[in-house]
């Protein structure tokens, strides 16, 4: 039984907000890639519009963290929860930005048919999304093993990125008409790679949250 | 020069010696009184009246008068002393009047009891025309004890934390309500202990009574409880000798052959009574305090 009801409630609210932001971001990535693959302009627009919500949520979470620090003199795990909150929102917001960027590209590419049906990009997106999902789950359950798994998964995304990048390069060389679209898709893959990177960061922060140990960046 | 540790040990030794000396001395003193008075401590001695020329008299009337005078004196002292104490602690503002009052109380407290006795002789005995009366004695003792009672009341009331008053005012109580309902109940243990000790003083007082209440107790009719009847033990306007006075009298004027035994016995009774007063006040004070503070 704890004696700090209000505080605990506030910490719980913070966690919920972070999780909500996480799912929003995850959903945004998913939708963005979908809109790209399905050339669905409206879905893309939805993602673009949704970015504001995510940005606002980030600011709210940051404010909450600030107020908690001001009020509660957090120490130990409480402090780590708050610090983690402050840090991973940056990463999540960036992921949201990338979703926004992808959605923008989706709107641009929607005007022409796709140079080829997208397979690897959605696969990459799925991987990144899974990582995001896992890290959120790790956050919920304070599951270090899962968080470490997320960190490892980044390599697979990187491999896929390199593969898709080379593929698109080949397309471009073969058919200069595809250049515009291919460069766009190149950026998309780059973004997805970044998303995975950010997610890795988040996972690392989760490990810190649980253990208090910072992983040295690779 | 001796080392500081040696000095320490030496000093400790000396203090122990003093402690032991004093304890032994005190034990001897009480032991002496009780040992000598022991043979007298029987019901007959405690209840029967004195004899003038023959041995075997008791101290019954004196014992009764001591208690009765005590009651009378306390009836006068407590209300006045308590009120004055309340005034000092609660109403008095720092200033000339309060300073004067305090000085008066201290002056009164420091007056030798013989002076108060002489004062009583002229005022309560001669001027009023009452002659030697228990009431006059009670008044003299009241004068003697008033400053003590006032100081005890004031201290006890002052010792009640200010926070209690604030709490009461904060709840919308008037000053008088605060005093009577919050402060005095809180001061009760202190008041009680103090008053019992004051009572002990009355019980043992002699000098102030020699000239006011007289040195002998008339033969009384203990079945007569009408306080206005001359023969009634309850008539406050009759002379009466308290135990302490009686010791004095037996010693100075007594023709009784067993004067020594009577004085011994009466002394022992007095000492034991003081013992009871002290222990009683301690016990009551502690119990009451525990009740108020919730300790077991």
């Amino acid at each position, binding site marked *: 039984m704890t004696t700090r009801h209000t505080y605990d409630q506030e910490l719980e609210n913070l966690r919920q907000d972070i999780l909500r932001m996480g799912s929003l971001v995850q959903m945004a990535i998913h939708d963005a890639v979908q809109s790209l693959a399905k050339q669905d302009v409206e879905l893309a627009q939805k993602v673009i519009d949704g970015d504001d919500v995510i940005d606002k949520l980030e600011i709210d979470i940051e404010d909450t963290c600030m107020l908690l620090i001001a009020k509660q003199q957090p120490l130990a795990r409480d402090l780590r929860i708050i610090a983690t909150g402050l840090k991973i929102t940056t990463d999540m917001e960036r992921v949201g930005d990338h979703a926004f960027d992808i959605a923008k590209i989706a709107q641009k590419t929607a005007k022409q048919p796709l140079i080829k049906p997208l397979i690897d990009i959605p696969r990459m997106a799925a991987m990144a999304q899974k990582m995001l999902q896992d890290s959120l789950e790790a956050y919920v359950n304070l599951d270090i093993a899962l968080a470490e798994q997320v960190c490892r998964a980044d390599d697979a995304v990187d491999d896929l990125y390199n593969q898709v990048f080379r593929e698109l390069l080949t397309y471009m060389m073969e058919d200069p008409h595809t250049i515009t679209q291919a460069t766009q898709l190149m950026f998309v893959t780059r973004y997805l790679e970044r998303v995975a990177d950010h997610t890795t960061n988040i996972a690392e922060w989760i490990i810190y949250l649980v253990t208090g140990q910072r992983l040295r960046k690779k | 020069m001796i080392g500081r*540790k040696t*000095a*320490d040990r030496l*000093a*400790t030794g*000396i*203090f*122990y010696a*003093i*402690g032991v000396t*004093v*304890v032994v001395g*005190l034990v001897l*003193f009480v032991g002496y009184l009780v040992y*000598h008075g022991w043979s007298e401590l029987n019901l007959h001695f405690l209840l029967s009246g004195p004899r003038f020329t023959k041995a075997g008299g008791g101290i019954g009337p004196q014992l009764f008068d001591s208690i009765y005078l005590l009651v009378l004196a306390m009836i006068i002292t407590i209300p006045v002393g308590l*009120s*004055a104490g*309340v*005034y000092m602690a609660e*109403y008095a503002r720092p200033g000339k009047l309060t300073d004067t*009052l305090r000085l*008066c*109380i*201290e*002056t009164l407290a*420091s*007056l*030798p*009891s*013989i*002076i108060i006795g*002489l*004062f009583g002789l*002229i005022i309560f005995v*001669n001027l009023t025309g009452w002659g030697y009366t228990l009431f006059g004695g009670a008044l003299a003792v009241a*004068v003697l004890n008033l*400053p003590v009672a*006032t100081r005890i009341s004031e201290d006890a009331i002052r010792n009640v934390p200010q926070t209690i008053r604030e709490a009461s005012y904060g709840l919308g109580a008037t*000053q*008088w*309500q605060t005093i009577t309902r919050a402060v005095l109940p809180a001061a009760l243990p202190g008041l009680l202990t103090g008053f019992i*000790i004051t009572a*002990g003083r009355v019980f*043992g*007082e*002699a*000098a102030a009574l020699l000239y006011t209440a007289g040195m002998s107790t008339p033969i009384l009719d203990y079945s007569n409880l009408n306080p206005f009847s001359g023969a009634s033990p309850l008539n406050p306007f009759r002379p009466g000798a308290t135990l*302490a006075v009686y*010791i*004095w009298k037996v*010693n100075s004027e007594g023709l009784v052959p067993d004067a*020594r035994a009577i*004085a*011994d016995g009466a*002394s022992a009774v*007095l*000492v034991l009574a*003081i013992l009871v007063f*002290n222990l009683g006040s*301690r016990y009551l004070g502690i119990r009451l305090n525990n009740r108020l503070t919730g300790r077991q």
Partner: protein
Amino acid sequence: MDKYLQTRRLSWRYIKKELLGRSVVTACGLFIIILTLFLVFFIASQGIDLFKDNHVSLSHFLFSTSWHPDRDQAPQVGALIFIVGSIVISLLALALSTPFSVGLAIFMTEISPGLGKKVLQPAIEIFVGIPSVVYGWVGLSLLVPFIRTHIGGMGFSVLAGGLVLALMIFPTITSISADTLRSLPHHYKEASLALGATRWQTIRRILLPSATPGILTGVVLGLARAFGEALAVQMVIGNTIKIPGSLLQPTTNLTSIMTMDMGNTVMGTMWNNALWSMALLLFIISFSFILLIRKLGAIGAMTK
């Protein structure tokens, strides 16, 4: 909403209760002042008659040893013998009891607080309460014969008076000293010990100096009690109207002569007036003690 804050159109019960209580206790305070003033006035007016009506000079009263109030011609009322007697016996009592009192106070607060609290403190309190006639009685029946047979003289003596008084004021001084020592902040001691001082060093350099005003207050109170005590002393000092040549000689003092002669002399006579002048003197002395104690109290408060 106004109804709450408005004056309750003065409830008389409320006012009465407040004012009545206040007046009663104030009256009691005033009563004490009046009583004291009356007493003082009374004693003063009685005490002054000797000089006013009987035209005795103050210096004769204070400095002459010639006490012949019963002479028909030129009665003499020099009170010096009594004054000296009071002083000598009181100082002797003080000298006898102070070292023991302070020593015991230290013993019961610092050396053996357990014993001090459980045994000595109650014992001391009981001894404060023992009536003076009992002390006098013990002095008369135990001390006087003892001195007579084992030390010398008639037994009735300055020494006997001093001892009885010492015994009487011992608990007063002890309990005030012990209270003072006890009320010294506990941390004085801790601080000193933690600096590596021995217990004796701590007592001597910290506790005693800090407690000095309080101890002195106790001593003065003891002195005042000794001065004003009547019966116990009178029973054992012999009441010889003479300045004692040694501790073993009898003497008399202010209170004794007052107890013995006051009742037997007639109001308004020179003899009686002389006794009242002694009462006034006694009052002045005890009043000076109060002033002294107040001074000491102020000093004590400053060091707290």
